[in-house]
């Protein structure tokens, strides 16, 4: 009885083990594409062993294309132009690309395997993206679910970014989370201070990164991130500006305002902050203080559901009805939006209806 059980297990294991062995050997020989070259913008040439994804191949060589989902092909952030050697468009890429992008050779770097020499084109700013090590020097509670985290850089010691850009925080393996993940957060501090960055992080129930930041991260802990990413920064014009933010969307706008207060500006600016109740408001004093700094600036918090006991004196409702009052010259207005995708969509629609040019609406949407 006992012997036959052992024998049965042994034979089944042998069969599956043999098949697995064949697969491992096949993988070894078949997945060997020899040395492949990646030509980036005709300026940099990387030689590496073929077989891995373009995204990983580049990040191994310290070139960090933004990616939010970690190479699963679900977020569509790792778009880059592949001029040669990318192979035909894959079914996994199609849903995330527009027709214009498809004809322009735009591909998802995480889906393409480097099997031959590849020629790609990426924005110059990506060369600026690095991996940074830092130490958490301060964690502040802004509201019951929003924290501000200040990171002092250790390696490299300084960062060069534009106000409004974001970094991608890397969460370590902790508690039940068995995989490292990267999540994007906007920098909320002034680029003038290049030794520290501040992030504003709202707790998302079950969120891998936010749970880590809110419940496990302590002052003095090591932290690493890549960046800076994104094209959500101030355009250097003289047009009026309207900022619209919700929740932790305050972060990039705070960075922009701090930057502008340092370099000085005479542009007309209005800042609408949408929240639910008084409990969701934070940094209100700091934002109102900018009204004294700039010539023409106003901070307007709008609450959608103020509780009666809060005795709220400000505006009630959504931010959209306030637009006609604040935007005096729609054709000459730039809008900077930061918030949830749903909020961005409705705000964008309202702005376009009002006459704000579509190409002057800049936004940073977080899912």
């Amino acid at each position, binding site marked *: 009885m006992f012997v036959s059980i052992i024998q049965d297990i042994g034979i089944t294991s042998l069969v599956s083990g043999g098949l697995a062995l064949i697969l491992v050997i*096949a993988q070894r020989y078949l997945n060997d594409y020899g040395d492949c070259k990646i030509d980036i913008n005709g300026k940099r040439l990387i030689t590496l062993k073929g077989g891995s994804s373009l995204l990983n191949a580049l990040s191994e060589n310290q070139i960090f294309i933004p990616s939010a989902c970690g190479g699963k092909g679900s977020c569509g952030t790792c778009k880059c132009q592949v001029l040669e050697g990318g192979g035909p468009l894959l079914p996994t890429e199609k849903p995330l690309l527009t027709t214009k992008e498809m004809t322009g050779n735009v591909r998802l770097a995480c889906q393409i395997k480097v099997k031959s020499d590849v020629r790609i084109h990426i924005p110059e700013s990506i060369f600026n993206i690095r991996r940074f090590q830092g130490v958490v020097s301060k964690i502040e509670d802004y509201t019951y679910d929003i924290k501000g985290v200040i990171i002092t850089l250790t390696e490299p010691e300084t960062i060069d970014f534009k106000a409004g850009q974001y970094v991608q925080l890397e969460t370590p393996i902790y508690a039940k989370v068995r995989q490292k993940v990267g999540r994007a957060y906007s920098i909320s501090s002034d680029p003038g201070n290049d030794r520290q960055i501040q992030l504003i992080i709202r707790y998302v129930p079950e969120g891998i990164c936010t749970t880590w930041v809110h419940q496990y991260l302590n002052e003095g802990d090591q932290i690493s991130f890549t960046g800076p990413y994104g094209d959500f920064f101030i355009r250097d014009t003289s047009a009026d500006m309207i900022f619209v933010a919700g929740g932790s969307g305050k972060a990039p706008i705070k960075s922009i305002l701090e930057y502008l207060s340092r370099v000085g500006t005479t542009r007309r600016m209005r800042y609408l902050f949408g929240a639910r109740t008084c409990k969701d408001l934070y940094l209100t004093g700091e934002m109102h203080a900018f009204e004294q700094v700039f010539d023409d600036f106003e901070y307007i918090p709008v609450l959608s559901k103020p509780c009666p006991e809060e005795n709220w004196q400000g505006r009630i409702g959504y931010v959209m009805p306030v637009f006609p009052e604040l935007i005096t010259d729609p054709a000459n207005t730039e809008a900077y939006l930061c918030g949830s995708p749903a909020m961005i969509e409705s705000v964008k629609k309202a702005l376009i209806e009002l006459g704000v040019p579509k190409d002057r609406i800049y936004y940073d949407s977080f899912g």
Partner: protein
Amino acid sequence: MDINAFILFWAAIFTSNILLTNFLGMCSYLSISREVESSFGLGMAVFFVLTVTAGLNWVIYYHILVPFDLIYLQFIVFIIVIAAFVQLLEMLIERFTPALYYTLGIFLPLITVNCAIFGVSLFLVIRKYSFIQSVAYGAGSGIGWLLAILMLAGIRNRLKEKMIPQGLQGAGISLIVTGIMALAFIGFSGIVIVQ
């Protein structure tokens, strides 16, 4: 089972089509039959995997499972063999014919869980086919499956321009079409008896 392998091959295509008489492999059949091109790709992959795994599983069944009295493990072993073979096939195709790899793309891994393939492996055991018969039955079933999905894809292409009641759109009308196709295939039955 005493039946000429060549006859069995044709019988598997027409008189006992794996999809239209046994209704196996329905899930990918319904979901990948929107375009003729992709259904052809999937059908070819099914044909190839069916032919080879029928032979492989026959060898493993009669030369490993039967001598060691492990028949009760046939389900697990067959699935392992199919999964491993699909993996290997995917690697081979990716390496040597990238063009085909990109056409089949996502369909190859899907085949692992296609019950037509597992069904054929079980039938060849139940019906006591010889090795040659098994391979012929596998290949025939593969072509039969390809034929069925191609027909459905063609019909669905035509249905695109037709008015179909809302509740029947998609899977509903596909199942009705499949039913009518199966009825048509009953016309072939009785010519050869395979079981």
